[in-house]
């Protein structure tokens, strides 16, 4: 079971991984975006981790809501806002829970991903973070019965595969969309962020 402490540990690890990959994400984004991806992701997750650390709250939903708001305040870029929308979607699913098992995490994560699709008006296959997050959500659901760590590990594999697949896609959203075919062959920066999230979560869950 995961609780508020696990959530804090997971968020802190994501923040660490994003800070570590800041320059890598900036360079990835500069090829067909404005290069702020590394900045917004490291700032956003640092703020979310800080928000979780500065409260005694145990309700997982309220914690995710606080994380989402802090993230948006620190990083209101396109992907930053998408991330906070996802966190707020998860918050709704987790409201009232102080502990969650793998199935509940899978359910919450799926709702977060659905909220992003609805609000951003996008779907998998369009060379975005969703191409990593959506297969990860499916893997979480499919492997929930095996327990938290195995489910997260399956999601990590799915997210990495999904990120890699974006190299074969054409961008249709944001600035990258103007480059159309020129985006073929490049991995999407947002999808890489999705891969890094699960890399961090597996690392955090393995420690705990």
């Amino acid at each position, binding site marked *: 079971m995961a609780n508020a402490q696990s959530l804090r540990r997971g968020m802190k690890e994501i923040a660490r991984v994003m800070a570590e990959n800041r320059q890598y994400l900036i360079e990835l984004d500069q090829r067909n975006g404005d*290069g702020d991806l590394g900045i917004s992701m490291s700032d956003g997750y640092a703020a979310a981790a800080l928000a979780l650390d500065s409260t005694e709250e145990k309700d997982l939903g309220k914690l995710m809501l606080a994380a989402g*708001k802090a993230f*948006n*305040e620190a990083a209101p870029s*396109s992907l930053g*806002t998408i991330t906070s*929308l996802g966190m707020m979607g998860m918050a709704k699913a987790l409201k009232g829970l102080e502990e969650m098992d793998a199935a509940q995490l899978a359910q919450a994560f799926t709702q977060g991903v659905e909220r992003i699709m609805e609000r951003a008006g996008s779907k998998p296959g369009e060379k975005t973070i969703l191409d990593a997050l959506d297969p990860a959500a499916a893997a979480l659901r499919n492997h929930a019965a095996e327990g938290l760590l195995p489910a997260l590990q399956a999601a990590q594999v799915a997210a990495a595969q999904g990120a890699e697949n974006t190299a074969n896609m054409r961008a249709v959203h944001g600035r990258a969309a103007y480059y159309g075919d020129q985006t073929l062959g490049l991995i999407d920066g947002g999808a890489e962020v999705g891969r890094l999230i699960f890399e961090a979560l597996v690392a955090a869950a393995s420690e705990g």
Partner: protein
Amino acid sequence: MKKVLNRPENFVDEMMDGIIAAYGDRVQLLNGDKRVLLSKYPAPEGKVGIVTAGGSGHLPVFLGYVGDGLLDGCAVGNVFASPSAQKMADMIKACDRGRGVLCLYGNYGGDNMNFDMACETVEMEDDIQTKTVRVKDDVASAPPENKDKRRGVAGMVYAFKVAGAAAKEGRDLAGVAAAAQKALDHTRTMGVAMSPCIVPEVGKPTFSIGENEIEIGMGIHGEPGIEVREMMTADAIADLLLDKVFADMPVEKGGKVSVMVNGLGATPKEELLIVYRRIAQVLSEKGITPMMPHVGEFATSMEMAGLSVTVMHLDEELEALMRAPATSPFYTNENI
């Protein structure tokens, strides 16, 4: 590249300090927040609020249109980045006089999602009614069949002006939103760029334009345009931009228009006037009457060289709303 700066990370804060130092008698910060500017001009009781938001780096857009007969509030983010949903929500609350607030802003992903979140928050927490109208005037950014994907550029100034006049007349929220939408349905913009701009925190141009080249349809954040051509004369630029606008929005012989020739930051007013001169010639040949010319800098992109041409096709209602007095520290139609 030389830029007049202290520290790049203080760019927006210090610009905001400057606005308050210069114009603090007419505009103010919301509770000292250097990301939210509110009007201090007297407004009629129960006037519908109008707000906008967007990234910094485009003055007079967006902050410059907070004023009388224009906007009630504006939230800004870092250069070319949306402000947060919370700042937008705080601004909407501050601008509601009980009859609701129109959110009128450019069609960009970050701004759209943050405004949606903000509207949801104020509706839930404070019972404030909001309506959203997104500016999508940039003809270059998507073909007619994908109109909904177009970006908002200089045409938003006309929408601010028309909506502001409608609100001051006492129209209700639906009426103000309808006026803004009508203004936009009658407005198209097309631009060209000749040199890139520099985001202070990045410190170098994020794209380049060749020495003897001009990029047709480039966006105000350096989004790629529709084609790169060899540099051309002012008249050729005027003809090209006007052709693209009229191809998308035909104006009949005998029609009336207001034309904005907008400098993107590094193009002198002399050159803008040379372009306006040609546009006036072409309009006269077509039997179209230009009125209320807007020639100058209305929506910029830092130090980008280039210009955009916006045409608003006027009818009686739009003409009257355009003529209603409006004043802000950055804009007035008194001498237009």
